């Protein structure tokens, strides 16, 4: 038995390495194109390492497309604000639902559970009309405010706080802290793992969001990177060197966050994954 398992071992590594290659090749291929000149791309060589390594593509997209830095900024403003609001609001609500007794709290908890099940497609059109009515089209708040709280993460925070040791709050109460002081000074600092998991998911979601900016932003200066990239594709058809350089720039922030925080990911997925 044991020897057979040992003989299988190299096969397992071959499979894993093979699949890692399948995962990496599209990214490497894009990265490689972003450092190649257009003539080299058109010539159709299959070399991953560029023959004539160049940074021109990156320089060109910033120079010729003055809106590109603006799109980056828009994405950053939106993703960071959405993340900050969610961390605060979802934690507040999760804490209230887990720990504070008030009339209607049970009803609110079930309402939030129900909202998790509502598919986002249902609210696309009415949300658009409401935002239009508010005069928010082509503004940051059009995306930030509706995304500032999310039922899934309210539920996640509630589950986290419900297992929180009660003694800490009792001690804080003896120290004369009210609910707000207790929440800000005792509870939130201890909720770091849950907040970290939330940060990653919400930032990624907002950074990569496509449909909302597509329908709410028609002014080119208010585009986010995801929409900007799509117009870029239409504008620079077959200039794959530029398109790939722009794609790499959009991927980097999310990639860095992922690499640094990946251990929180697994926790978050298994949690939100209905387990």
């Amino acid at each position, binding site marked *: *038995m044991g020897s057979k*398992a040992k003989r299988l071992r190299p096969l397992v*590594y071959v499979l*894993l390495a093979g699949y890692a290659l399948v*995962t*990496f*090749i*599209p990214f490497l*291929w894009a990265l490689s194109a972003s450092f190649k000149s257009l003539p080299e791309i058109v010539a159709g060589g*299959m070399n991953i390492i560029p023959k004539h390594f160049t940074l021109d593509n990156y320089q060109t997209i910033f120079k010729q497309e003055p809106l590109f830095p603006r799109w980056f900024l828009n994405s950053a403003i939106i993703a960071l604000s959405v993340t900050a*609001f969610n961390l605060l*609001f*979802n934690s*507040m*609500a999760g804490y*209230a*639902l887990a720990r*504070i*007794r*008030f*009339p209607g*709290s049970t009803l*609110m908890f079930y309402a939030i559970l129900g*909202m998790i*099940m*509502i*598919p986002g*497609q*249902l*609210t*696309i*059109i*009415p*949300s658009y009309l*409401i935002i239009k009515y508010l005069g928010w089209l082509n503004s940051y708040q059009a995306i930030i405010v*509706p995304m500032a*709280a999310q*039922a899934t993460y309210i539920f996640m925070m509630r589950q986290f706080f419900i297992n929180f040791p009660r003694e800490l709050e009792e001690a804080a109460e003896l120290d004369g802290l*009210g*609910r*707000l002081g207790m929440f800000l000074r005792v509870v939130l600092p201890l909720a770091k793992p849950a907040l970290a998991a939330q940060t990653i998911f919400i930032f990624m979601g907002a950074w*990569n969001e496509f*449909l909302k900016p*597509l*329908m709410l932003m028609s002014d080119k200066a208010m585009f986010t990177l995801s929409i900007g990239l*799509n117009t870029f594709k239409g504008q620079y058809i077959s200039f*794959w060197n530029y*398109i*790939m350089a722009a*794609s790499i720039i959009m991927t980097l922030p*999310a*990639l860095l966050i*992922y*690499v640094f925080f990946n251990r929180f*990911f*697994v926790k978050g997925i*298994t949690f939100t*994954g*209905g*387990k």
Partner: protein
Amino acid sequence: MAKPGGKRRGMEALAGYGFMSPVILILGCFLLLPILYAIFLSLHKVNLLGHVSYKFTGTANFERMADDPRLWIALRNTAKYALIVVPCQTILALVLAAILNMKIRFRNFFRVAFYLPTVTSSAVLVLIFMWIYNRNGLLNYLLDAVGLPTYNWLGDPTVALFGIMIMNIWSTAPLFMVIYLAALQDIPDSLYEAASIDGANAWQKFWKITVPQLKPVTFYVLVMGIVGTFQLFDQSYIFSAGSGGPNNATLTMVLLIYQYAFKNMDMGYASALAFMLAVVIMLITVVQRLLFKEDKAN
């Protein structure tokens, strides 16, 4: 504490509502209200010119669906897509998770690496794949190198949806892999030990213990996969520049709703379609949750 009970309870209630107020406002205005508004819209003909005005048309928007050929194309595409993508990504996720669950070196590296596509924006992924799929692209080069026929992946209606399928299997399987991986930790070692004593080999253990034990999770993964195919939008929008082409080959339900709402400005009919889609998705999830709970109780 020292405070009288009544006052204390009042303070607690005040704190409770205070803590809930941002969420009540946001979800109330941008989730609850839109849901009611969606139902209202789906029963009206909406005129967007000048002031928004509504004309009550009863169930006319819903009746219209039966004679909408593009709806049937979108549904057929979704069905075709689900039939291929859901089984493939589920099997791939299970196999990857089972391998990663073995005592291997660099396990964490592989997990982090495999998960990479899931965190990348769909806008970027589609562009990268279009670059790979273009006529002189990497995929055709590789196909040609091993003697297989090459295709015009972006322009040929017979293979365009297939291109999106490959991309989505590749980018969604890792998410389900992580869910499987977590579920694998919950299978008691004693089951495997008992099987070893009975002389079972690794293959038998996988089929007789792992797969049956993972049944509820597999069910969850399948249902989530199907729901995901109903919600497909970004990929087909970018791939076809919003048209659902070539020749409606990449038209999906959500893309159809988007086109009716924002291209034809027919918000009433688009809302009715969105309403139907939401009902179908919610029914599927509710059934899954009920069955899943039962499975857990047993």
